[in-house]
């Protein structure tokens, strides 16, 4: 393993940084403009793709990951575990069956007016902490 000296680290010129900033600002304008268009279910995806492009620019240039493979592995590894966290949790939550008792007449809202097909309050008994009549 070679030990680079502290002053031997590659120095990026301010001009490059300026261009990166410019790109980031342009992407910000794009993402704001894109929010006025309706891509249907892809809205969030588009927003996140643009955010990831910006994030990559920051990480690669401002955080020097371009020249820093080792720490890039650490960082990407961290993101990978975040992804596992999200995907595994979603996997369970989204594959749960919506079991409903057959005698459930109307969905009783969990809070007033909630248009939810999912969780409902049980049909019997009083809610916890209901004030005395």
């Amino acid at each position: 393993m070679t030990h680079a000296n502290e002053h031997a680290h590659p120095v990026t010129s301010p001009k490059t940084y300026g261009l990166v900033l410019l790109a980031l600002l342009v992407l910000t304008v794009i993402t704001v403009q894109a929010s006025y268009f309706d891509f249907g279910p892809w809205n969030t995806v588009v927003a996140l793709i643009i955010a990831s492009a910006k994030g990559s620019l920051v990480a690669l240039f401002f955080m020097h990951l371009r020249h820093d493979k080792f720490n890039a592995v650490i960082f990407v590894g961290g993101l990978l575990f975040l992804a596992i966290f999200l995907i595994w949790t979603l996997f369970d939550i989204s594959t749960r069956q919506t079991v409903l008792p057959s005698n459930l007449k109307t969905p009783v809202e969990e809070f007033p007016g909630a248009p939810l097909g999912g969780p409902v309050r049980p049909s019997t008994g009083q809610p916890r902490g209901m004030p005395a009549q």
Partner: protein
Amino acid sequence: MSEGVLHAGAGHAVHHADYLEEPKGLWSWLTTVDHKRIGLMYMWSVLFFFLVGGIFALLIRLELLTPKQTIMDAETYNRVFTLHGAIMTFLVIIPAIPAALGNFALPLLLGAKDVAFPRLNLASLYVYWTGAAMAVATLALGGVDTGWTFYTPYSTTTGGGVTLMVLAAFVLGFSSIFTGVNFIATIHKLRAPGMGWFEMPLFCWGMYATALIQILATPVLGITLLLIVMERVLGVGIFDPQLGGDPVLFQHFFWFYSHPAVYIMILPAMAVISEVIPTFSKKTIFGYKAIAFSSVAIALLGFLVWAHHMFVAGMSLFAGAIFSFLTFFIAIPSAIKVFNWIATMWRGSISLEAPMLYAISFLLIFTIGGLTGLFLAALSTDVHLHDTYFVVSHFHYVMAGSNLIALLAGMHYWWPKMYGRLYNKKLAAISCALIFIGFNMTFLPQFVLGSRGMPRRYFNYLPQFQDLHVASTIGSWVLAAGLFLTAAYLLASFRQPKGMAANPWGGRTLEWETTSPPTTHNFEGQPVLQHGPYDYRPEPAPVGVKELAH
């Protein structure tokens, strides 16, 4: 430091001030950045809380002697088992080996002068003390009765000091993260010259794998605990079904940390055992790479399986199948390790010193602890056994049994290095036997209780379970007797003068090449690795530490 005195290897008896004596005074200990002193302070703190948590455990067992109320009422009982769990998990088992033994031994094993960030290391100790003080302070607020798992919505609706306890666990998380960051940076950057990744002692691999989990999992626990605080203080609604939240989501958040955290508890134990067995078998470790990689594999696979804690929480068939399937893969690296350790003993020159006795005891207890995990990974048996005493017993075998017995193995192994003194070997053998018998007496009956249907966290129970509870309670007294005996002879060792040889066990790792106890800067100069960590071949070349001009 003695200037100009060169040590060419083990066995030199030139007396100079060691890290225990120099500098002197309480203040110098409280402000020290020496990893060895921090490790010792961690160790004694952990042992103190082990005593506290252990007393709670004895109270629990005493209460369960009879089916109805014995010595306390239901509310007190709930608080006592919560405190037992929270103290033992967050204050004892998680820091036990990494923060105490790891801090003491890791830099020595790597041939480094200190960990990469000594001040962060000290900060971690103070954070630990702060968290511990907060956890104890909950007693003043009426205790906590949620169980250490803080399941919502119970934990967000019950009274008492839950908020403070949750914040305490949050703070303790930082101490764990600091240790993890420190160890990874240390292992990457401070290995002795000549020490490649595969010349590292396996203890370091274990610590590395542990540190990975500490870094990747602990922050999620942090945010989960903050969310509970927010739920209690602001009613933010994310885990509250009345407000549109989902209590099952909490379980995902919690187990994303807490399942890998189980490996924070077992990997360091395996790390210690991987040092003790070759030393006392005087034989090179069998399958070095397999053991090293299986540590990392356990650490990483551990992140994929947490949902097996939720098989009976209404999970879909498909999800259940996937999580069960993945869980079984943890069994492979664990099995590899056990067989590799036994293979290391094979054709060795086995010396049954106290650390080796504890290591053998670990092997047997871990065999039971590991294999009973299969019951809980398999779907149909888990449905029957989940949340019963079977689970209680299984995790005590893995966490309490394996982790704490490995802690004892490590303490007995490095005690001469820490203090330059030796304990009474006969008493050590007796107490090791007492602990082994007491432990099995306490927890074997609990497997049967569980498979017969005794649920966990029960204050009252049906009379049919009493016989086994009585057996378990008596076992807990035997276990306690063994532990008190250990404490007694370890403390008694301080009455002897310091005079241990540098390498009393004939170990081949670097810590044995400096004096016992070491000086503040561990080594005279920078040690350079001359042979592998478990190389017991007789060799003509001079062994070990070579001096470098400083």
